């Protein structure tokens, strides 16, 4: 069977790929486009390690079919920094030591960015609830929450 041709925009750049109907967006990102920043922790939407945004909406790339993203705009961890300039969230994660093994970090950063776009001034419990779909097994979440809160404050200050 012939493959499906998909035209899309990834991290503001035009992208095209061929996929099979059963391929997920995560399969294509990682294996076809070699954007391996999104990680597969479960393949069932339970861990959030493959978080990306699809037309601005936070999703698990493992729960989206590649064929579905025709004409869509996808943003991944690879597009988060602006060249050499890290996003404030990325800087704050480093400053607050909000990562240990780092496997959940790309997904948590993408999810946090989506949160701060929607809610620039979240409470700590709003951050915790928003990130409940992003499992982290190393940190106990504490330093992650601190980093997101601090980034939010700094981003508000810039506006």
């Amino acid at each position, binding site marked *: 069977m012939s493959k499906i041709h998909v035209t899309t925009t990834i991290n503001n750049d035009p992208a095209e790929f061929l996929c099979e109907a059963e391929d997920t967006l995560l399969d294509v990102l990682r294996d076809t486009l070699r954007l391996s920043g999104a990680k597969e922790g479960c393949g069932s939407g339970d861990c959030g390690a493959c978080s990306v945004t699809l037309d601005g909406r936070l999703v698990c790339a493992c729960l989206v079919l590649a064929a579905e993203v025709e004409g869509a705009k996808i943003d991944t961890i690879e597009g988060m920094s602006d060249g050499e300039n890290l996003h404030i969230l990325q800087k704050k994660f480093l400053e607050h030591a909000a990562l240990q093994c780092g496997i959940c970090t790309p997904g948590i950063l993408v999810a946090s960015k989506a949160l701060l776009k929607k809610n620039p001034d979240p409470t700590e419990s709003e951050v915790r609830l928003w*990130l409940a779909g992003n499992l982290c097994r190393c940190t106990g979440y504490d330093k992650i929450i601190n980093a997101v809160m601090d980034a939010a404050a700094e981003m508000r200050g810039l506006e």
Partner: protein
Amino acid sequence: MSLDEFQKRDFKVVGQRVERPDGIDKVTGRAMYGADAYATGMLVGKMLRSPHAHAIIKSIDTSAAEALAGVKAVVTAADFAPLEAGDAHNVLDACIARKKALYDGHAVAAVAATSEKIAKAAVKLIEVEYEILPHVTEIEDALKLDAPIVQEGFRNKKIPADMSDNASNYYQFGHGDVDAGFERADLVIERKFRTAATHQGYIEPHACLASMGPDGKGDLWCCTQGQYYVRALCAQIMAMPESQLRVTASEIGGGFGGKTTIFIEPIALKLSQKSGRPVKIVMSREEVFKASGPTVSSVTDVKIGMTKDGRITAGDAYLRYQGGAFPNITCYLGAQSAFAAYDLEAVRTVGINVLTNRPKQAAYRAPGAPMAIYAVESVVDEMCQELGLDPLEVRLLNAAKKGTKSSYGPTFDDIGLVATLEAAKAHPHYCAPLGPNQGRGLSCGFWFNFGGNTSVSLNINFDGTVGVTEGNPDIGGSRASISMMAAEELGIPYDKVRTIVTDTNSLGHNDVTDGSRVTFAVGLATIKAARAAIREMCNRCAKLWDIDEDAVVWKDGFAKPAGPNAGDYEPMSLAEIAAKSPNTGGPIAGHFEVNADGAGVSFGVHLCDIEVDPETGFTKVLRYTVFQDAGKAVHPDYVEGQMQGGAAQGIGWALNEEYIYGADGRLQNAGFLDYRVPVASDLPKIDTVILEIPNPGHPYGVRGVGETPIVPPLAAVSNAMAQAIGTRMFELPMSPPKVLKAIKAARG
């Protein structure tokens, strides 16, 4: 090692909160983990796994799979030459079933194909004829004399004759006259505790990429806590010399002990050998739960005697651990650590291991200790309640300290238990008010900490910067700590040093990243390697200045004349010496290889407040504080991170995490939906208090910190539960149905 390594000093770099060297890669998605590797011509490997908990494999027909277009190799246990009894033998049998499938999810065959889709299709074409046998998954069932026998040949001679053949190990420790101790007690309480098997729950599934050449050379890329151990096991299994197998550890997406062994690597190597192409295997999450190495489940009886003023007169514990179809060592680690926090005249612990039809357990952070100490700390707490004594004061009264003969034999040197207890007592958390349905729990925790075989190489680059090469995967920020110790010893800024974790063929042997050993042992070797480089730099200066080698000393990054008699020379910086090194004899380096001892035990104390919904049994953790002795916190952020992460895992273990097996012997919750690790909104802020009681066995006083923090949460949460609901529970996890049942039972 000498016991007086530690020397007091003012640190310049150690103790700072510097940025980690792998940070940028990890926040930009560039870090390469197990599943991120690619090789040209790579095939996809997939396993066929047994749906039965216990079954004889009568035949395997792989012909249809082999005939499928795109399939390049099929492997079964028959492709591996039999091994002598021992570690590698058991590991291989756990990776792929030889005669019997021993647990639900046990691999029986594997294929390598040109795509995942073809590999999946091929796996379905393999026909296995099973003869299903009765199975056993629970400890007490496995110990019954009429229980199905999981595997013969593991029973050791010390096991009492009247015990089932599923018992594989039996250890007894202790000292003093326990019975006389109980006689002296005003109160004796004996209780039985159960803990469910849990999983380390690392977010990165096991993954590897194997490449075997027709010349017998192999390369293996995998996520592991120990590339050298992977090499040793795989070389034995593949019957190849270690020198011909290079193992490179990827970035590791969490391990916690679960990546100290192998599950897929030999299969990938064999598939690669048979197909002549590189093969990548990535486990699914379901495979991780079913067929990696969860921790043991346990049943423990604890009996303690106490005088009415709170002195413990004797302690007795009988611990049974099941760790799947193979023997494991948690029984003695648990039995030795059960009463480690106490200074006891009389103590006796017995640990036994039981085989069941479950996957071969792997280590999980302080293996064996959390369950043992949960049982002991629960009984101590109950006795305090019964006698109307303050639980913290009773711990202080009985605390092990320097000079205490430990429950496992040796006498303690400087240890931090009393200091952590005092810190907890002084902390506002200990006297914060509690509301209705709330409770506060306290528990001590302990871990031995290990040293072990370690190699470090440190190179002084011509431009005055420094490269450190080490061989232990960085699981929680160790590259930062190691760079910091190198910078400290050399007297140069942290950003002049870069530490990398190397492959097996670029550095001497390093033991697995286990036992909280890396910051201690690799740090120690790094300091010694730096000292070797310093000696050489001083020698080069002596040549330049034409004075005696002994007349040059090193201070704050400079070589200097030892004193006025040595001569009047301008001190030379490391950078200056490095720049001249081609002229003075060539590149300068230091290295150090050691089997490090003197790790120094670690104690912690946790305080936990919870609130229970009395109508539903739902538990909310309100407040949590961790107190722990780090010896010297090299990078305080990552010490806190270990303390918080361990606490979070322990809270999960206490409240909701468990392996649930059905009557059919199959795992019912092989996914993150029903294996419930704590999510961000489940936890409060986890406060940390680091204490620094220097370890005499390390130049900077460092102790391992990674494992102790998972030990206290089980009892801390359980003790808080007893206060919150007014009745004590004796089984983990304390999931809502059990909590509600306990509340209703207490109400009558």
